[in-house]
Every structure is written in C-alpha cells, then in structure tokens.
C-alpha cells in the first residue's frame, strides 16, 4: 500500500484542479447569487452547487489521461495506481462533503438563508434530514459521479476508441429499448411516483450500488490496460 499512497501524493501535487478549482467556481457562483438575492425581493433557489458534482465527473473522465501513462511509465503497479486514486477521491469527496454539509447547516440554521432568502447549499429534497444524512447524500453523489467518469475513461484506456464506440452503441440500444418498454406499458408515472417516494438518503444507497459496479469495472479495465 506504500506505493498506493505515493500515487495519492502524485495526485495531490495537482491540488489546484482536484481541490481549489471546484471551490473557486462554487464560491464565485455563490457570491453572484448572493448579490442577486440582495437586490431581489423573491426567494432564490439555485443549483449552483451542482458545479462541484460536475467537476467530479469531469475529473473522473480526465484522471487517466493525465496520469496513468506517467504512473505506469514510472514503474507503479496498476493496482497501486487504482487504490492510490481511490484514496485521493475519498479524500476529496470527504473534505468537500464536510464543507458542503457545514455550509448547508450555516445556511439553514444559523443565517436564515444568508439573510436574503438565498437557498444555495440547503436545497429542498436533496438536503432533507440532519447534517449526517445530508453528508451521506453529498458523499455518495460525489463518489458516484467521479467513478462514472473514471469507468468510462478506463474502458477507453483498455479497449481504445473502438471499445468506446461499442460501449456507446450498446448503452444507446439498451437505453432506447428500456425506454420503449416503459413507454409501451405506461410505466413512467409509476416509476416517478415510486422514485419520489424515496428520500434522497434512501436513493443514495441505490446509487451506491451502481458506484460499486463502476469501481469494479474500472479496476478490471485498468488491470489489463497498457500505457
């Protein structure tokens, strides 16, 4: 595991992208919204916090491109690369989760929506429940989006552009088929009703299973990937 930690340290050298950049975008969006909220009379519900999640997805897509060939070329094992990256994602997700959960608490409990009815960090449904429950939702969403991107790029690393093309075609066909079946049997209403009946916390367990699937896919793809 020593070399896995060295991989984490390698990622940490790029802390501007992993840590600072998403926060700069997030807080820029927050302050712009705060100015609007000060000038406006109506409550503002904004999805600016989504930028953090989007960053995780993009970082997941780009990590392999940036560091995999370098790491393998510098004698790291694929396994160490994988676990070192996992540690890095866990660290980033955890620290961001703590920050977002804290800001949600400040917004909802201490500042009465920043004194100007700005709902930025504490959104209905997503931030229902106590701080721990909210943190679980944030953490699982961050992990999920990172490994969605990471698993896609690991398929590309393993099988190249033809592999990606096949993955895309299979995904499109499967998606269209499922969608057609649901439409044919008029199941959309039932599905939406059932999904909404679950809390965000309950759903986070569901996407957790999907995240484990993405993590396993990435692992097995990288084990046979070349530099």
């Amino acid at each position, binding site marked *: 595991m020593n*070399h896995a930690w*060295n991989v984490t*340290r*390698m990622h940490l*050298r*790029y802390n*501007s*992208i992993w840590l600072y950049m998403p926060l700069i975008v997030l807080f820029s969006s927050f302050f712009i919204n705060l100015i609007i909220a000060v000038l406006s009379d109506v409550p503002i519900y904004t999805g600016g916090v989504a930028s953090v999640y989007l960053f995780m997805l993009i970082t997941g897509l780009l990590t392999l491109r*940036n*560091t995999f*060939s*370098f790491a*393998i*070329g*510098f*004698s*790291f*094992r*694929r*396994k*160490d690369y994988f676990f070192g990256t996992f540690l890095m994602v866990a660290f980033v997700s955890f620290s961001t989760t703590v920050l977002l959960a804290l800001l949600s608490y400040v917004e909802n409990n201490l500042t009465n929506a920043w004194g100007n009815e700005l709902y930025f960090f504490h959104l209905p449904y997503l931030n229902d429940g106590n701080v721990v429950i909210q943190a679980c939702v944030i953490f699982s969403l961050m992990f999920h989006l990172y490994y969605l991107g990471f698993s896609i790029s690991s398929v590309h690393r393993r099988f190249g552009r033809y592999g990606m093309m096949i993955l895309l075609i299979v995904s499109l066909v499967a998606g269209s088929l499922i969608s057609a079946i649901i439409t044919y049997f008029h199941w959309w209403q039932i599905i939406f009703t059932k999904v909404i009946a679950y809390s965000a916390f309950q759903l986070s367990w569901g996407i957790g299973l999907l995240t484990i699937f993405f993590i396993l896919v990435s692992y097995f793809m990288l*084990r*046979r990937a*070349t*530099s």
Partner: protein
Amino acid sequence: MGQILEINGLTKAYKDVTSIYQMSFTLKENKIYGLLGRNGAGKTTLMHMITAQLFPTCGDVKVFGEEPYENTRVLQQICFIKESQAYPEYFQISDVFATAKSIYPNWNDGLANQLTQDFQLPLNRRIKELSRGMLSSVGIVVGLASRAPLTIFDEPYLGLDAVARGIFYDRLIEDYAEYPRTVILSTHLIDEVSQLLEHVLIIERGELLFYEDAESLRSRIYSVSGSSEVVETYMKGKEVIHVEKIGSLVTVTLLGKKEENNKKQAESLGLEYVPISLQKFVVDLTTKSREKVVKGQ
C-alpha cells in the same frame, strides 16, 4: 555473474502485424547493452514488455527471476526512460523528480541535483512549457539518479545537442563505474555510444538478428574493396553482409571469424581492408535482412 533478464519465445502480434516474433535471450547483471535496429524493428515494443507496460501475445519475460507484471519487487528495480514518456502537463520538473524518488529505492538526490545543474533545468518550470531537449534531460536525470538495477533508455536524447549528449555519456560512465547496474541503451546514434557498449543486440522485423560481445563484434566487422573478380574470390566461404558496386569497383561488408586473419588475407589479394563502424554494420545488416524479406527468401 547472474542473469537479470530472461526472455523466452516472446511474441507480440497485433491484428495485422507481428512486432516481436519468438524472441529468446538473456541479459547479465552490471553490463551495458546496446539494443540496436531501425525504426519499427520492435525495440520499443520489446522494452515495453520487459517493463510490463505491454502484454506479450505469448512467451515469458522474467526480470530478476520473476514476472514483472504487477510485481513491485521487480518494477521498482526497473527504470525505463522512453522518448515518448507522457508527463502530467501540470507537473513541474520538481514534481517529476519527487515522484521518481518515491518509487525508486536507490534514488540519489545529490546526483539528481548535480545533473539538474549540468543540464540547466529550471525545477519550477512546468513540463508542458519545456523544449524537447529539456524534456529529454528530465528523463536522463530520472534514469541516472534512480540508480535502478535495470535502467533502460529508449532514444533518451531527442532534441539534445552534442554537448548535452556528451554530458549524458560522461555521467553515465562515471556513475556506472561507481554504482554498476545493467543498462539497456536503444539509440540510432550508434557511433556515439559505440564505445560505451559491452554487448550488442540487433533487432530487425521483430527478430533478434545478432547478439554478441561488442568488442568481439567490432574486431570482426570490416569491408574490403577491389575489382569484382578478386573480391568474389575473397568472398567465397565468408559471411557477406552487404555488397556495393560502383563501376568495376566492388566494396563488400563482411563478418569475419575471430580466428581468421581477415586483414592479412585481404591484403595478400591486393584488396583494401577497412574496419567498419558498428553503425555501418547495423545499417548493412538490417538492409540485408529487409532485402531478404522483399525477395521472399
């Protein structure tokens, strides 16, 4: 002296081309090997398989007696510096050295600092802002300062001028004398490295054409020139590598036998005897091999 690399029946085949075909050889510890051959001969593919960056289609690679794939014990003893090495573009030179230090147990900071000064590398400059020559220098610093028991250089000095290449050769020899290790040097600048090499492997079209002690090889390669009839008489029973005709003058590159006095024989027939460089030999040998393929022999 122990073997550090054992390759047995190694083949790498792609859909429409075989890069390495049934290759077998061994390398001993603490020697400098020259891996020579033309572009596309299979050198880089071979080095990628030795370092487990590429998977063989069949055959075995054993480094320090073990499979290198996902083997930390083996991998941290191999430093592979290649011309095409990708670096994270946001990395500074100092980040590259710090990462190398974290993986290679024999890494030497003093040597890294000395080489950084020799090559005038700005440690805080980002990799993406470096010139081709500076990028090569970064690889050379890593390759030498890692002091890995198996160090592989694949065209390490692209973009470097003659002075910088001279620094590389000097530092390599100095450090090798003090801390012996096995070095594989793959390059097209054969004449420049010729005196460094202790053994030579020549690869062409994925096959090992030649593997010999460099000193012995240098003493056996030569050319003779003269009129075609006399040269043809001389060539009988000898291993001819290349024949070049200009008018009535014929120049032949030959690989003599150790025990024969090739010079005396040639001069007794009135032929001009000239020892040839390793580079000329590699060019002639690989050209001959390609001609054979074209003729379907």
